[in-house]
């Protein structure tokens, strides 16, 4: 009886955890055919009571995925690789042009608007979030496009 109770509780905890983290508005910017890098954007929402930490990402459609953050400093466009991104309890972090983004490195084949990119977001506890991000042609402007 205790054994089954344990399993049921674990099940509740896993599903309630999964329900607390949400990925919305995921999209990948369409890029030139010979572009070695593409960018993925999304919003991570944490409805839970503890911070969640994103530590990496993967995609079967790219050689490698890294998390980067763009910024303008003294007129210079810079980019910093992020080892982790923390999403506060009850908060959200947006990955948007000009800010955080997934650097999708070396597409294994050309991706065009309408294609879908499968992303796996890796959290620090080892948990994985599966996301599907459509490829979109975007006319730029750092977020003034929705």
């Amino acid at each position, binding site marked *: 009886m205790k054994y089954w109770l344990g399993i049921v509780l674990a099940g509740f905890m896993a599903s309630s955890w999964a329900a607390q983290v949400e990925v919305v508005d995921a999209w990948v910017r369409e890029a*030139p055919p010979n572009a070695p890098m*593409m*960018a993925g954007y999304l919003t991570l929402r944490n409805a839970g009571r503890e911070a969640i930490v994103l530590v990496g990402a993967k995609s079967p459609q790219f050689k490698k995925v*890294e998390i980067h953050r763009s910024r303008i400093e003294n007129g210079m466009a810079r*980019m910093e690789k992020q080892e982790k991104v923390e999403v506060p309890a009850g908060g959200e972090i947006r990955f948007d042009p000009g800010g955080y983004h997934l650097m999708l490195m070396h597409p294994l084949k050309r991706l065009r608007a309408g294609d879908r990119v499968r992303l796996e977001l890796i959290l620090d506890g080892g948990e994985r979030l599966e996301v599907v991000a459509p490829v979109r042609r975007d006319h*730029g402007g750092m977020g003034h496009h929705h």
Partner: protein
Amino acid sequence: MKKTAVWLVAVLAVAGGAIMLWGLRPATPDLQMPGLQWFDPAPRLPADGLEDSEGRPFRWDWSQGWTVAFFGYTHCPDFCPDTLAVLARVESQLQDAPPHRVVFVSVDPYRDTPEVMREYLAYFDERFIGVTGSPEALQAVTAEAGAFYDYEDPDSGEAFRVPDAKALEKGYVVNHFGALVLVDPDGVMRGHLYPPLNVERVSRLIRALQ
């Protein structure tokens, strides 16, 4: 009497010519915007060692109008594609724009060849001009334009001037100038438009490049 008349005509002709030439010098565009900076005096940009994606020598002077230049690189995932997309959008929708050309200068000659540039830019707009150059040529033009750049290892954050074989294998980030560089028909750099670079700001700027 005749001699004085000849002298007078000559002086007036020269003066008239000078006044005409003065009037033809491109005036500073009549536009003020946050993040838009006009320079006076203004430097003439060097073009030695720069070439376009057809392999022809590139020149900063262009009698037909102004040049809107952006310095970046094709391994850029976020900032450069966004800016090029804005520039392409402006080109496609701006009516009655004064003649101008858009130039994308790669500050990553180690990975961006003229052919790479041609294919990359064709995606945004067939009219965009890709420019590459030797490291020396790029250092000269970016220094004059105030468009500084350097290379950085993404893991250590360490900056370097020239990528070695290891860096080329691993990949590196290029930190580059984020503003649009505005060059008049004489090849003189007259202004910078700093981010945010969106369709509205860039349209207003291009309309003012009379």
